[in-house]
């Protein structure tokens, strides 16, 4: 057990300033990645890969679709009480 006062210790992610730096650098990276698309030459296998920002859109939409379908379709079907098998 740690002494009481250690609970007051501010860790990295508890500080608003460091969160702010993180958030801004993340946003900046997003913008950079969106922009990079127009400076590279893609070698694509399928026509859909040539759409602008294909990977960005696919990742975002895929992620949201995955999470929401797991939440609203799969979970109601399979969720049981913790002691279901006991």
């Amino acid at each position: 057990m740690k002494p009481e006062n250690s609970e007051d210790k501010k860790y990295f992610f508890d500080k608003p300033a460091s969160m702010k730096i993180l958030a801004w650098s993340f946003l900046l990276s997003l913008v950079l990645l969106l922009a990079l698309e127009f400076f590279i030459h893609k070698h694509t296998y399928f026509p859909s890969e040539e759409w602008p920002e294909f990977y960005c859109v696919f990742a975002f939409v895929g992620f949201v679709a995955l999470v929401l379908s797991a939440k609203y379709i799969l979970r109601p079907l399979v969720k049981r009480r913790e002691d279901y098998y006991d």
Partner: protein
Amino acid sequence: MTEVLPPAAIFIIGGLLVPLIKGKWKSAYMLLIPVVGFINLINIPEGTHWVVEFMEYDLIFGKVDRLSLLFGYIFHLISFIAILYAIHVKDDVQNVAGLVYAGSALGVVFAGDLFSFFVFWEMLTVASIFLIWARRTKAAQGAGYRYLLVHAAGGLCLLAGIVLYVNQTGSIEFGYIGLNGLATLLIFLGFGLNCAWPLLHPWLTDAYPEATITGTVFLSAFTTKCAVYALARAFPGTEALIWIGAIMTAFPIFYAVIENNLRRVLSYSLINQVGFMVCGIGIGTQMAINGAVSHAVNDILFKALLFMSMGAVMYRNNNKINCTALGGLYRTMPLTCICCIIGAASISAVPLFSGFVSKSMVMSAAADGHMQIIWFILLFASVGVLEHAGIKIPFFAFFGHDSGLRPKEAPLHMLLAMGIAAFFCIFNGSFPSYLYSLLPYPVEYVPYTVPHVVGQTQLIFFAALAFILLTLSGMSPAEMRAVNVDADWFYRKGSGLFYRVMDISMNGLTRVADRVIVGELTGSICRISQRWPEVLCLGIMIPLWSITGVKGKELEGKIERTRVALQTHTSPIGISAAIATIFLVLIYLLM
């Protein structure tokens, strides 16, 4: 061949000797086994070694080629890491089981014939079961029994296939088999069960999270990868595997989203990653097989790393492993947190981490084969990996809501083990040429091209953006304590139905049998067998006596004495023999 030993022998014999060594030396001894094993391994030349004649067949304990060697190397490395991680474990059951399990895996990989292959394959199950039971909880006991039953069924399926196959071909050599006919289908399914194919998979997600903290690290490395090896050896280019693999990558990610137990999330993730390998083996081109095998190597490392980091969290937090119970641990377990993030980055295929250089090979092979639907499924599954393994695992354990837990950092030996795995995750990702040089086929694939790096980074960052927005808007599924039913429902709940059906049918049969056979039939036979000698005997004797002039009281007396003698089996030998003879003659005439 006198100076080198079969790799399996070093681990199995070495493992069985562990209980004889006491005190401090035990740790050193156990760590020495994979080291000695590795030195032994690198001195084994390619080719066929240790051929033992057995009942007209040749058992081969050393089929050494580039495919088996690579699995051999990684099995030695992960054994060393897992033993180091488990060095605090005093329980010899686990220590022996871990080493014998690793040895069996090496036996499978270097087996050149189907008999020794099968024996080592079954030893995998037997040894690994103790890593589950050693947790000594009711849940672990139940999961262990289910694991044993499922694997026993799979093993029998494989054995039936092997017997049929050997009968058909007359050869027990283990090489390319290919899918044609019943025998090969049974072998295929036997491999598939250990590979955790869809619907055959629940043994994995059921049992691995219930195993001991250190046991799960061993488990994650061997059983499924041995199955991947077996498929790569016997069924490369089998089209069914492409679809099986693609489904394996896609369906577990949905379960992983809503699962609360973080080690179970990793178990689903394990199936998802093995799916990429199975898919690659199904595609079957040189690049696809290279991709599958290199991904197996990388997955062994990063999956073990993730299981180790979650194990360290359990170890320091009184076995807590649910999302609902954890959170904010980065404050006091920063090094474990960093190791976990390295594992998460590797599995998510972040550039410079190991997944990036191997998973993409399978995807490129799919694209080269113009398999558009497969490619999209794999890409979607890659996004899913980011969700559960890339973000969920580190986030819910080390960040997220502050659980108020302030545990100590993981012990030194665990940190070292995680550090070694983390080193190889980064090394294989940043300098892939070393890994590529060990692959079965020459590698022409170049992972680090600008479009690949940019595309993959876009994928990762925008998936992360989706996660952040979903979490901030409260639309992410809430973590809750619950069971999510999976295909194991059929035998976990179905077993109750089976029990009742068996109760009614089998116990009913017993009752009927009791009434008819015990109650009535036996009595009748008894009565008949007593009555018939009497009838036979007296039927012959009474006329004889009458002819010889025996009458009245004397006749009645004779009849009575004969009857008593026959009932109490005290008749003179002559009469018994005569009756037996008559009986036999009768039977002879009747037949």
